């Protein structure tokens, strides 16, 4: 691990009176898996939205690979190698899963070829390979709007991975996934990401997942980072346990969709 891949400094953003980011300073190290935990409304998704260009901070800056990306468009940021997945899966609902992935593959190469099929052998193979690794081969030909929540979630992440990012931000990758499958899926995901040497930031509610897979964990509370460090250390902090994890475990039983 060598230095910060992403550096957020003094990020502030308020919606009306609500401070979604109230002075966020965070370094994401190259190659690490950073988990973000915290109660709903703490500003976790806002951080991802700001990093990917969907929201513009009122103050502060974000640097990626030594370069300031604050205020850049999502499109430009993706081109630099930052991809994301979504809390509510953002799939092309009238396309098949395979087409969804292939579109992501295609967008890496530039999509401006009007006469060669999307599902040309090279894109198809890459998409199939990815689906295989995510264990989605069986539903490759299903339309995205026919999938269950867990499959949508995975397909959504697979699309982000297909962009071959250096930094991947995932918003609650395991919400909606059945508890019985959760560990297997995360394991698969982590293997894929480690193989591709992707740095990952993920918002997570399941502390078991955090404990097992995160290199570091950041605790969000009211637009601030309340704690930051290795999972074992942070999760055993009684204040964190009381204010974050306790509430979390009662407020959102696993499998419930966050709207």
């Amino acid at each position, binding site marked *: 691990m060598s230095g910060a891949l992403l550096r957020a400094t003094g990020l502030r953003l308020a919606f009306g009176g609500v401070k979604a980011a109230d002075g966020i300073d965070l370094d994401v190290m190259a190659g690490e898996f950073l988990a973000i935990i915290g109660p709903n409304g703490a500003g976790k998704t806002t951080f991802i939205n700001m990093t*990917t260009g*969907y929201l513009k901070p009122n103050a502060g800056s974000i640097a990626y690979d030594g370069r300031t990306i604050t205020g850049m*468009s*999502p*499109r430009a940021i*993706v*081109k630099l190698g930052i*991809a*994301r997945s979504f809390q509510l899966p*953002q*799939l*092309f*609902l*009238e*396309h098949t899963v395979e*087409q969804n992935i*292939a*579109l*992501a593959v*295609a*967008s*890496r190469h530039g*999509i*401006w*070829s*009007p*006469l*060669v*099929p*999307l*599902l040309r052998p090279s*894109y198809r193979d890459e998409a199939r390979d990815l689906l295989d690794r995510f264990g989605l081969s069986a539903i490759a030909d299903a339309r995205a709007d026919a999938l269950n929540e867990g499959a949508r979630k995975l397909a959504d992440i697979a*699309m982000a991975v297909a*962009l071959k990012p250096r930094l991947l931000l995932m918003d609650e990758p395991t919400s909606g996934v059945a508890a019985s499958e959760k560990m297997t899926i995360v394991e698969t995901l982590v293997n894929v990401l480690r193989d591709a040497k992707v740095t990952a930031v993920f918002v997570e509610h399941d502390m078991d997942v955090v404990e097992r897979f995160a290199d570091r964990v950041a605790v969000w509370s009211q637009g601030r980072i309340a704690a930051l460090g290795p999972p074992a250390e942070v999760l055993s902090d009684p204040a964190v346990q009381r204010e974050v994890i306790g509430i979390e475990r009662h407020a959102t039983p696993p499998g419930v969709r966050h709207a």
Partner: protein
Amino acid sequence: MKRYEPILGVLLAAGLVAAAIAAPWLRFVLTIALAKGIAVMGILLLLRAGQVSFGHALYIGFGAYTVAFLAPRVNDGAVLLLAAAAGAGVLGLMVGLFVTRYRQIFFGMLNLAMCMVFYSLLEKLYHITKGSDGIRVEIMPIAGQALDRVTYEWTVFGIALGLAFVLAFLLRLYLASPMGEALAGIKTRETRLEFMGVPARGVLLAAYVISAVVGGIGGALIAMTSRHVTPLLSYWTASGELVFIAILGGAGGVLGPFLGAAAYELVRVYAAASFADAWQMILGAVLLLVILFAPGGLWGMAARAIGGRGR
């Protein structure tokens, strides 16, 4: 279903040719139907992106008037077709740069506004356009060949059919390409496109320009067939008619526009002949029945008959 599309296309074309040989007056109606079918492919393209243009009669009118204006100077049908296509493309680019910033009703109504402004110009610039009287288009040589009337009509019919084939083929490729699939992505998840590094507006603009080009071609063919152009070609109801044909034919495949256009023109002719003062009611009722009882339009019906899915 997609597999059958070429075969069905050939069958449909053979049917059109047979009808045109058998009844000379139908040849005229069917040429118009082909021309409108070509234009409706552009509507289909935009529908892929979930956008409804209520103003594409603008490009029909533009293509038609391009032919009418240039015919006395450039007396060759082939050149005029190219000119109409290119002109409509440029116009489409200019209008598209503006309207592709908008979605849904705003997109629809801005297109309508452009169309109505063009219509008003055709009416207002009386000394150039002859207003509602319109401009007559004489029989013209095509690709350097001077033609008598019947040969000319057959040639235009043939060109319309040939263009329909070529354009439908290209459109089919386009729709299956990354550009075409990204276009369909605008309908369901436009934001995701941006997060994949794909400029959604550019994708839509490209489709918009293509839709303008085919609109221009359709309009030029209409002018070469009816040989008289009037501002009515660009009235808002004419735009509605294009959307009407698209839905009647079904938005599932590239044959839909042609099925729709042929059905539309034939129903209109037969309704007008049988009930001269209630043809609108009959057309409206046909459309209503198709929407309520045959979702997917005529193409969907054909697809179900063969046993596949519409798309």
